[in-house]
């Protein structure tokens, strides 16, 4: 369990985020700088020695690669260690994993993980095509498959194998919108209900518009440091990273022995929790990845909160709500807050830290001590899990 707090703890000393949405007036750099500045300010002015940038699609959507130096230069930090990390939709979480490793190794004093994504410079078929580069290009994307269609294939099989009533999955986006309503940074703060869910347009059968988190612009950043390298007084409680793990599965859905079980998601939770010395059941809330309704259910199963085929049931009786036994997506999740690609994983972490500090506003959980945060890319080909604990 929760060991005594140590000076060598790796902590999150600062967080920053932009609102998620359609930021026509802001570029990739503008967005990143806003998150950077907010995180530095939040930390009381710490400047990073190393910058790890999570991004999914800038080379395709913005014709811009080399993001490490692009952003370090823009922030006035030219000269520092800086590089981008690419792990699809989990890129931001992967950047945090690298920041953690860098600081834990002793090679870097203060690291920043920053996720940024700019979707809205492209529209429609170009965005779908861009998002499909995270799949196996020759054998999945070439057949017209998209990340959303992968989730649709899994949902169809899930409904068939476990005989689940189709409307039951609506509980996930309904919950996400409920929670997003209390998050001023979220993209969708409107409520939806079972009727509107039933009428939503089909995107890739059986997934409808409300089952799929919207791609959106955004940037989020966290500052990672060893506790003993921080100034004595920070204006907020610290969150300790007590477990961190990144795991991979077979990339293509068709190559997996059991496509309905997200093995990388399981492994990442297992390893992060083992490092933290806890069981998944010991966390107070779970920031899971609901990039589609399918993955919300499959994540609950992979993490061991529900048996295979039973994850959807947890959404039916309120146990995932803010006042439930295991709150999830407490500030709206991907569906309500929006899905800013390679920044999404860091939004999840920022949101978990807000809860742990008691700064989550209307959606504040009562005194949470420990969070499990998991980012998935597509059908969890990459899965990243972090266990965060508040230090009082």
């Amino acid at each position, binding site marked *: 369990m929760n060991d005594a707090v140590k000076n060598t703890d790796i902590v999150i000393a600062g967080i920053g985020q932009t609102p998620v949405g359609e930021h026509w007036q802001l570029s990739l750099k503008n967005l990143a700088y806003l998150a950077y500045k907010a995180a530095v300010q939040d930390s009381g002015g710490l400047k990073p020695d190393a910058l790890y940038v999570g991004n999914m699609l800038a080379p395709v959507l913005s014709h811009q690669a080399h993001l490490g130096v692009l952003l370090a230069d823009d922030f006035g930090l030219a000269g520092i260690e800086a590089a981008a990390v690419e792990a699809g939709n989990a890129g931001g979480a992967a950047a945090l994993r690298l920041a953690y490793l860098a600081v834990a190794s002793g090679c870097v004093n203060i690291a920043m993980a920053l996720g940024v994504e700019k979707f809205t410079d492209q529209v429609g*078929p170009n965005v*779908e095509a861009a998002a499909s580069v995270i799949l*196996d290009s020759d*054998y999945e994307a070439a057949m*017209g498959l998209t990340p959303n269609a992968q989730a649709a294939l899994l949902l*169809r099989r899930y409904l068939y194998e476990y005989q689940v009533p189709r409307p039951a999955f609506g509980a996930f986006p309904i919950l996400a919108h409920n929670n997003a309503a209390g998050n001023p940074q979220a993209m969708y703060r409107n409520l939806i209900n079972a009727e509107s869910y039933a009428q939503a347009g089909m995107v890739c059968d*059986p997934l409808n518009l409300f089952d799929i988190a919207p791609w959106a612009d955004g940037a989020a950043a966290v500052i990672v440091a060893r506790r003993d390298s921080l100034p004595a007084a920070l204006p907020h409680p610290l969150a300790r990273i007590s477990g961190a793990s990144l795991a991979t599965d077979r990339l293509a*859905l*068709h190559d997996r022995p059991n*496509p309905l079980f997200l093995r990388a998601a399981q492994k990442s939770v297992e390893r992060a929790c083992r490092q933290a010395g806890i069981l998944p059941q010991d966390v107070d809330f779970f920031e899971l990845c609901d990039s589609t309704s399918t993955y919300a259910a499959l994540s609950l199963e992979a993490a061991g909160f529900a048996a295979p085929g039973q994850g959807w049931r947890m959404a039916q009786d309120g146990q995932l709500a803010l006042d439930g036994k295991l709150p999830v997506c407490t500030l709206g999740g991907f569906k309500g807050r929006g899905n800013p690609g390679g920044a999404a994983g860091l939004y999840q972490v920022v949101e978990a830290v807000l809860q742990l500090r008691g700064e989550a506003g209307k959606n504040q959980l009562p005194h949470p001590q420990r969070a499990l945060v998991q980012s998935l890319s597509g059908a969890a080909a990459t899965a990243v899990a972090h266990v965060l604990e508040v230090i009082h």
Partner: protein
Amino acid sequence: MEISRHWRLKKQRYSLIGEVCPHCDAKIFPPRDVCPECGQEARSEFAFSGRGQVYSHTTIYDAPAGYENNLPYTVALIKLDEGPIVTAQLTDLGAQPVEIGMPVEMVTRRIREDGDERGMLVYGYKFRPAWNAPIK
């Protein structure tokens, strides 16, 4: 245009050529460098029969660039008779509703179009209902 990229895959796209592992006899599609069953190098070609069953399917109404002219189209996971699962579009469906377990067979069709009338047409495998196949 990416001609070499598609040309390189002609055996897979036109004839469903995968591999059989010389060490453990696993049938592999798509071909890989390392056999997922035994972890040794897999390099022996193996021609799949092109017969299989629908494992799952989805009809796509929101297409990526290059596939808009096919809308709506159906992509499926096909469990081949020899074991592996392959991702492919379904075609020649007519009014027949697609069902999990439905027997299908491989055919060669146009799978994407690049740009205008001067753009490249990419052909490859799709699967159609195998009306005469015995239901397993």
